[in-house]
């Protein structure tokens, strides 16, 4: 399987997905 980090586009996409995960965590932790 190809490493997604070898693709710049997939790296950026993962960055945005991770942002969504972090935003959810911020809301859960600070609730």
């Amino acid at each position, binding site marked *: 399987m190809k490493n997604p*980090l070898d693709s*710049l586009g997939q*790296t950026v996409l993962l*960055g945005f997905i991770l942002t969504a995960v*972090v935003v959810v*965590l911020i809301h859960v932790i600070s609730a």
Partner: protein
Amino acid sequence: MNEIVTFAWWVFAFRWFHVLSAIMWIGLLWYFNFVQTPTMPKIPAELKPGVGKFILPEALFWFRWGAMSTIVTGIILGWMNGYIGEALKLGIGDHSANLTAIGFGIWLGAIMWFNVWFIIWPGQKKNLGLVPAGDDEKKRATRIAGLASRINTMLSIPMLYCMLSASHGVF
């Protein structure tokens, strides 16, 4: 003079240097990932040393010291603002989304700083021949440094969301 150079001004000054340093660091990180790495395979062999021997060492100097300056000014800024301890605990129990956000931002930035100084730079030292390494070792170190650089590019997106949202009224 005293009315201008207040404590609040010093806090701002450290924020200014923090952002200047961060632009130097993340600007070069994105240069490596968005420009240099994708372009290298297209560069004719006789021109490649121009990048590898001249541009790369210079860019890596400003890159790693930009990272160092960013984390040092960031820690001082968090301490001057009185929230560094709570932020490092991700604001757990404080019920403050701003504290939790800046906490995540600090930890993401710290992971990125660690990657620069303890994975990318040691790998690049082998790649550049500053540290002796066999061909296989050089290849392996360069690959690991490249992946760490890509991880930092990925982490820079949520890191900047956390840093900016914590102080711009998002929460």
